[in-house]
């Protein structure tokens, strides 16, 4: 029946064998100057650039690439140009594995920039640690992806770990807003589950405060009525939402529609203009975590200049870009550049790691928050600030604003 199509099997074997054609030399031990030539430093990144999470990878790729282009145009690092390549992991674990192996075993760059979400980063984190390559985790805020103390070659940038986000939220709710009845609402994904579990733990430590409801919602849901009605019935003053921006938007809107008047508080994963654009009434006074110094959409000052540079480089970038992955990968590239410079002309991975681990109170770019990688967890960003929506715009929340919102909370 099928024997005749031996040809097809041969084709299959050829397809497998065809892999050899582009293969580089196999094996070989880790050399600490791998990926460095007289003229070039080779950096590889990965993250999802296809599929629903592609905004993560595209942002990380394009922001980083913009910085690399500027750095190279300015003469590079000690005369070496940076070569930056970015692989797609489609936000799928198996493909992330494939990409990680490809980077470690085949492409052999000087270092790795991980611009991917928590699940995919978690899946490859140990492999990357063992590879000995310098790794900069530019986007996963999962506490599970961190180690205390962290191994030498692994560094973490944005997003800030849930370990720091949770106390920040708990402090806001208990100490600033002085809420006594709090509801917790979180997505069922890794980020939301972990964060809100930690927030709940933190809140338990606050006296006179009671968690009156704890609801879960599907990350890709379109309707959160059930959760919101349950919360409304519990009559909280503040609702802490742990999750991402698409759901956050619908939640704020439906809360208003259902007459749930509690104050909403969100994490930085929801810090996206989508939440309040076209949703201004429902998002008014919403409080969310962000990083100093400016919000993404701020067209003034340093952020305004960045936006102009970005639009010049990517004229066809759609609305919504640059997103916060663009912003932070841009800063990350400059942070890495400064460590490369510090490591000196005779660049090795060891020297670079040493230089990066010594960074303290730096601002690699004008849009960068305060950066310090010199801690045992190698966490370069930990500082968070609070923003609120006022008149349809994201503004930093000042003491007066806070007092006003706290007044509303205590009155409810």
């Amino acid at each position: 029946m099928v024997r005749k199509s031996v040809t097809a099997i041969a084709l299959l074997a050829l397809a497998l064998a065809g892999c050899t054609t582009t293969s580089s030399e196999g094996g070989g031990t880790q050399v600490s100057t791998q990926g460095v030539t007289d003229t070039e430093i080779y950096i590889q990144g990965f993250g999802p650039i296809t599929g629903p999470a592609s905004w993560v990878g595209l942002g990380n790729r394009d922001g980083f690439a913009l910085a690399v282009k500027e750095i190279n145009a300015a003469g590079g690092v000690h005369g070496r140009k940076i070569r930056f390549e970015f692989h797609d992991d489609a936000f799928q674990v198996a493909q992330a594995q494939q990409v990680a192996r490809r980077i470690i075993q085949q492409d052999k760059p000087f270092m790795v920039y991980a611009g991917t979400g928590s699940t995919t980063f978690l899946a490859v984190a140990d492999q990357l640690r063992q590879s000995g390559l310098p790794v900069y985790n530019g986007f996963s805020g999962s506490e599970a992806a961190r180690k205390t103390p962290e191994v030498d070659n692994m560094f973490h940038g944005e997003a800030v770990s849930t370990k720091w986000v949770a106390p920040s939220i708990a402090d806001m709710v208990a100490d600033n807003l002085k809420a006594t009845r709090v509801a917790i609402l979180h997505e069922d994904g890794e980020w939301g589950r972990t964060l809100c579990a930690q927030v709940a733990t933190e809140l338990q430590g606050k006296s006179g405060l009671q968690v009156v409801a704890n609801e879960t919602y599907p990350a890709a849901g379109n309707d959160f009525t059930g959760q919101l009605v349950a919360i409304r019935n519990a009559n909280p003053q503040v609702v802490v939402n742990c999750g991402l921006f698409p759901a956050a938007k619908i939640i704020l809107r439906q809360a208003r529609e259902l007459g749930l008047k509690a104050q909403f508080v969100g994490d930085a994963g929801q810090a996206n203009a989508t939440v309040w654009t076209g949703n201004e009434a429902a998002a008014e006074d919403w409080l969310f975590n962000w990083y100093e110094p400016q919000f993404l959409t701020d067209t003034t000052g340093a952020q305004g200049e960045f936006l102009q540079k970005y639009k010049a480089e990517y004229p066809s970038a759609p609305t919504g870009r640059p997103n916060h992955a663009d912003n932070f990968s841009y800063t990350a590239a400059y942070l890495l550049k400064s460590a490369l410079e510090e490591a000196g002309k005779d660049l090795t991975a060891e020297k670079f790691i040493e230089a990066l681990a010594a960074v303290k109170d730096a601002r690699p770019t004008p849009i960068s928050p305060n950066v310090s990688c010199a801690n045992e967890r190698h966490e370069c960003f930990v500082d968070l600030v609070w923003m609120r929506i006022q008149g349809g715009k994201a503004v930093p929340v000042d003491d007066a604003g806070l007092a006003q919102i706290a007044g509303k909370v205590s009155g409810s």
Partner: protein
Amino acid sequence: MSNQTAGSTEKAPAATIPGPAPQKAGDGRLPRAARAAAWLLVGIVLLALPLLLPPFRTYLATVVLVYVIAVVGLNVVMGFSGQISISHAAFMGVGAYTTAVLMGRWELPFPLAALAGVLLATLLGYVVGLPALRIAGHYLALATLAFQLIVQSVIFNWESVTNGPRGIAVPPAVVGVFPLADRNLYYLVLVAALLSLLFVRNVVRSRVGRAWRAIRDKEIAASVFGVDVARYKTLAFGVSAAYAGLAGAMFAITVGFLDPAAFNLWESVKQLTMVLFGGLGTLVGPPLGATLLVLAPEFLTPFREHSLLVFYVVLLLVLIFLRGGLASGVSRTAAWVRRRRSGAPPPDAAVTAGAVTAVRDRPAPPAERPALTGGPVGEPMLTAGGVTVRFGGLIALEGVDLRVRDGEIKGLIGPNGAGKTTLFNVLTRVYPVHEGSVTFAGRDMLRLRPHQVVGAGLARTFQNVEMFRSMTALENVLVGRHHRDVCGLWRTGLRLPSARAEERRARDAARAALATLGLERYADTPAESLPLGVQRRLEIGLGVVAEPRLLMLDEPASGLTAGEAAALMDDVRRIRAAGVTVLLIEHNMRFVMGLSDSVTVLDHGRVIFDGSPQRAQSDPAVVAAYLGEVES
């Protein structure tokens, strides 16, 4: 509609149809030595691969092989048994998570953990196969979809066991002193993949595989020829799930990290695409499809964020221009090259030419048995009494009595809509009976399930030739032998001596039956590319090879030319001469009157006449019934 499809890819007519000068089986294929050499080459390449490839490519090749195992299993359900499954990734997930959890939490060694994963997946496969007993097509697709979504939800939410959305790391597997990683792992998965493929190949070419394909092509006919449809459908789901479970176990130790998204609905769809992309119902197609789809991200890297766009375009082009998938593209090219070289005429001409010669060259019928010109011949063999069948408010049969005596040729005639075929369907248990009794050779037929009827000695053909269209003439006839043989999945899959002997016997009998009907030259031709006349005779051959005591033919002469009909009359006489009783529905009066020893006439679901053909022609009630039909 759903039946014609699947298998047609498997043997594009062009590749297997003999030329005008028929050759032995194996025509159109490479010579045996060349085939052996090709396999050897493939084997050497596969074995040498990790030595030639750097570690990353070896890993890729291992992942490819994992998916080969999965899609070979999916192909059993979709390609061979013709059922749809959108839950393959769920089974794979069950296998993978079971393996990972048992290794991680209970510290079970990999082989045991994998075995548990395979068993659990298989069990669930049987359960999911159950709806297939009641529903088919889109509805079955929806049921498997529901199962897929339930499994992915359980993996996602059963946090205490699966670690939920965070995913679960699989501990390194060690067997004895060998760490299962890199090259070792590649060889392990390679062996598993090759054995999987070999097992399915053996099964598909055996009695079991023919039963699956018969169900795929024509479920009712399969059941009438003794295939226990329910059992074989669930068996296909079970086998397929076992393969998915095995692939899942291999996936776990290959990738080393599991998360719910690796086994979600879109992964199931991806595997379905692999099968169709490669070639549904072929042995090499799905592995080919798996190879290309797993490697697709590598090939598509240059397209960066547009890689999916390119992928969908390519997929659509393949679906539009390469119907049977890549495998058919390969075999079509091969066939085209061969034709160019041999200068043979295109296949259609070859078949038609062959058909004409077949009719002409057939041996003359044996001498008639002298006693068979008149009346009853022996004891009553089949007795139906007071059979009543209703469809809703409509009465299709009402108190029908029928008696067929041993050794006679009995005609069953009547105007259109008289209930003749309904009666056949009652006798073969396709339709339920509301009142009445049917006894055949002393057995109460109404206690049997449809597939047990042929075993009781009763075989039939269908009004609109119900062939297993994608199967060759020989395979068709072999389905007729199904109920006589016993070897199941394991014996055929492992090619145990008993299975081989049984297969040999069955093939000899089937070839002999083809020879009797003068059809041996079509042995390796797919039924769908045979002319109608040949198909009719082939279907009768199918009935004959089942070695029934009573053969029921439903309008065997319709659509035949006068010459073909005459040849068919000879065939029927020859069958009776071999000791088989015949019950015949026919509109061709010359045909039925010329053959029958006695006739029963049905009209509007009632018997209006029973007696000799001569008397029937002058019976006023019969004449009125037929005249009435003419008037209306």
